[in-house]
C-alpha cells in the first residue's frame, strides 16, 4: 500500500508536466485544428530560458518561471504569425508538415546555439523530503503539483469567465460566425498560442527544476505523450487535457513500477488506441455526427 501511494505521487508529478504541455496542444487544436508538433520544442525552449535566466542572471525560481512563460508566449506567437498564419486555409497535413519544419528548426537551432549536450539546471529551490508515514513527498513535487493546479485554475477561469475566453470558445466553434459577430479572429488565435506556449514554458521550467537535466531534444517524447494525453481526454477540451495528462503519468508509473518499464510506452499507446476505438472523441469528448 505504501508503495502504491508512493507510485501515485510519482505518477501525479510526472502527469502534471504532461498535463501542462497537453493543455497547449489541446487549445491550439481546438481553435485551428492543427497538431502543433513544435509544441514539445516550445516546452524545451521554456526549460532553456529558465536555465539561462537562473544561471546567467542569477534569478530565483519564480522570476524564472514568469520570464520563461513570457518568453515562450512571445516565441509561440511569432511562430504562429510567421509559419502558421499563411496556412490558415491550407489542408491539415500541410499545416502539420509546417509544424514539423518548425520543430526541426527549433531543435537544430538550440543544438547549435546551446550545444548538443545535457545542461544541468541549477537547484534554485531547496529540496526537502517530507514524510507522511512511510510515503515521502519532496518539496519540489509539491511545488510542481501546486504550480500546475494554479495555472489550470487560472486557465479555466480565463476561458470560461473572461471576454477573451469567450472569443476563444467562439472561434473554436465557428471562426466565420465569430468574425461576423465582431470577434478579432487573428488576435484570438495568437492569444491562444501565447497562452498555450506560456503553459509549455512553465512545464519546461518545472521539469528543469525537478530532474535538473535539460537537452535540446527533451521535447520530442513528452510532446508526443502530451498529444496523446490531449487526444485521450478529448482533444480541444481543457479539462480533458488535464485528465489525460494525469492519467498517462499515472499509467506510465504504475506499469514501470509493477511490471516492466520496457512496456510502459506500449501500454500507453494501447490504452490510447482502445479509447479511440471505443470513444473516438476522447474520454470527455462528445461524438459529433457528420452532417451530409
Amino acid at each position, binding site marked *: 500500500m505504501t*508503495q502504491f501511494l*508512493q*507510485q501515485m505521487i*510519482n*505518477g501525479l*508529478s*510526472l502527469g502534471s508536466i504532461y498535463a501542462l504541455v497537453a493543455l497547449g496542444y489541446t487549445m491550439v487544436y481546438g481553435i485551428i485544428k492543427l497538431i502543433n508538433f513544435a509544441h514539445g520544442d516550445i516546452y524545451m525552449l521554456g526549460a532553456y530560458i529558465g536555465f539561462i535566466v537562473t544561471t546567467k542572471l542569477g534569478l530565483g525560481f519564480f522570476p524564472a518561471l514568469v520570464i520563461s512563460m513570457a518568453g515562450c508566449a512571445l516565441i509561440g506567437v511569432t511562430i504562429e504569425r510567421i509559419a502558421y498564419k499563411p496556412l490558415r486555409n491550407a489542408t491539415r497535413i500541410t499545416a502539420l508538415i509546417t509544424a514539423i519544419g518548425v520543430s526541426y528548426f527549433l531543435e*537544430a537551432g538550440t*543544438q547549435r546555439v546551446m*550545444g*548538443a*549536450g*545535457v545542461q*544541468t539546471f541549477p*537547484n534554485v529551490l531547496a*529540496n526537502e*523530503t517530507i514524510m507522511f508515514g512511510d510515503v*515521502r513527498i*519532496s518539496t519540489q513535487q509539491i511545488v510542481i503539483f501546486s504550480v500546475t493546479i494554479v495555472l489550470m485554475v487560472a486557465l479555466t477561469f480565463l476561458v470560461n469567465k473572461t471576454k477573451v475566453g469567450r472569443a476563444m470558445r467562439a472561434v473554436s466553434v465557428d471562426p466565420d460566425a465569430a468574425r461576423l459577430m465582431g470577434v478579432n479572429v487573428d488576435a484570438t488565435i495568437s492569444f491562444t498560442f501565447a497562452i498555450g506556449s506560456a503553459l509549455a514554458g512553465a512545464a519546461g521550467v518545472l*521539469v528543469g527544476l525537478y*530532474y*535538473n*537535466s535539460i*537537452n535540446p*531534444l*527533451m521535447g*520530442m*517524447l513528452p510532446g508526443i505523450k502530451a498529444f496523446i494525453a490531449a487526444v485521450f481526454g478529448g482533444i480541444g477540451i481543457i479539462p480533458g487535457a488535464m485528465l489525460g495528462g494525469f492519467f498517462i503519468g499515472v499509467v*506510465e*508509473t*504504475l506499469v*514501470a*513500477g*509493477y511490471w*516492466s*518499464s*520496457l512496456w510502459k510506452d506500449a501500454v500507453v499507446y494501447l490504452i490510447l488506441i482502445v479509447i479511440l476505438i471505443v470513444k473516438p472523441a476522447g474520454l470527455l469528448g462528445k461524438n459529433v455526427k457528420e452532417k451530409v
Partner: protein
Amino acid sequence: MKTMKKAFMSALAIMMAASLAACGDSSSDTPSGSDNSGSNTVKIGLHFELTGEVADYGNAELKGAKLAIKQANEAGGNYEEVIYDNKSDTTEAVTLAAQLANDGVAGVVGPATSGSSAATYQIKNDAKVTVISPSATQIGVTLDPSGNVYNYVFRICFEDSYQGAAMAQYAVDTLAKGKVIIYADNSSDYAKGLTEAFTEQFKKLGGTIVATDYYSKGDTDFNSVLTKFKDMDYDVLYIPGYYNEAGLIIKQAREMGIDCEIIGSDGFDSESLIDLAGASNLNKVYYTTAYTTVGASDALQAFIDAYKAEYNEEPSMFSALAYDSTNLLIQAIEKAGSTDSDAVRSAVENIEFDGVTGSFSFDETHTPIKSVLVVTLVDGVQGDAVAVSPDVD
C-alpha cells in the same frame, strides 16, 4: 501565370542539378589533386555524430580528435582534418564511409557509437581505409558477419563483455556483494552487452540477480522503478549506461533513501555525472574505466590542461578516447613513413601505444589488451583506482 510558375520550377530543378554536378566534380577532383601536389598534407577523416540524438558523445570526441591534430601540427606535422557529421543516422554513416574512402584520407577516427561504426566497417575495409574506433564497444563489432576480423578496423576501447565481467568480479571479490539489481539502458547495444556479461559472471561467482529492469535514453523520471526496487532485498545496484541518465538515477535513488553501493561502467565518466547527480550523492559509487585522473601521468595531465585551455571545459572519457585514437593513427602514419593504406594498417596493428587511456597493443580481434580500472567516487571526486582482471575461462 501557370506556365511562368512551371518555367520557374524547372529552372530551379536545372539549377539544383547543375550545382550538384558541380559538387560532384569538385569532390572527385580533390583527392587526386591532393595526391599529386600536396603530398605533404596528410588528411585524417573525423567521422562523428555531430548532430542528432547522440551528438553529445560525437562532439566530445570531435574535440579530443581536433586537439590531437592541432598538437601534431604544432609539433611540425602537416595534418588536415576532414570532418563528417552523420546526424546520428546509420544510413548517413554508410554514405559518409563511401565519401571518406573517396576523399583520400590516410585513416579515419570514429564514429562514436557501435551501430554507426558497424555500418561503416565493411565499406571502409573494402576500400582499405584504416579505421580507429574510439568507443565502438559492442561485442564482436570488429568482426565481419562471417566472423573474421576486419583487416583495417581497430578499436581502442574495451569490449563490453570484458568490462561487464570485470565489474561482476569486483562486486563479488572486493565489495563482497551477492545480490544485485541491474537497471540497464535499453536503447544501446553498449548496456545490453554489459548486462549480459555482468549477469553471466556474477552468477558464475555465486551471486544472485534479484531483478533486471530497463530505462531508455533520454528518460528523466526513474522514480517509479526505483520505488519498486526500494522494497526488494538486494545489496548493490548495477547501472550499465551513460552519465546522462545514470547521473539522474543516482540522484533520484539517493534522494529516495537508497544508500547501497552503486556500480557502473565507463559511461559514467564525465563531469556531467557530478553536475546531474550532485557531488554529495556520489558516495559509494564505483565504475569500471580505462581512463582516470587519479594519479594522472604527466601525459594525461598535459592532455587535461591542453583540453581545458582549448575548450574551457573538463575532458570526458569520450574526448580522451578520441584523442588517443587520433594520436595512435598519427603515430602509425609517422612510423609507416607514408600514407599507403597497407603500410598504415600494419603500423597500427603492430603498435605499442602509450596513451592517456592506458598503454596497450591490439589482440587478434583488433581490440586493445588493457587493464580495467575500478574507480571509487568520494563526494563526486575520484578517490581510488584499482586494476581488476576478471577470471573469464
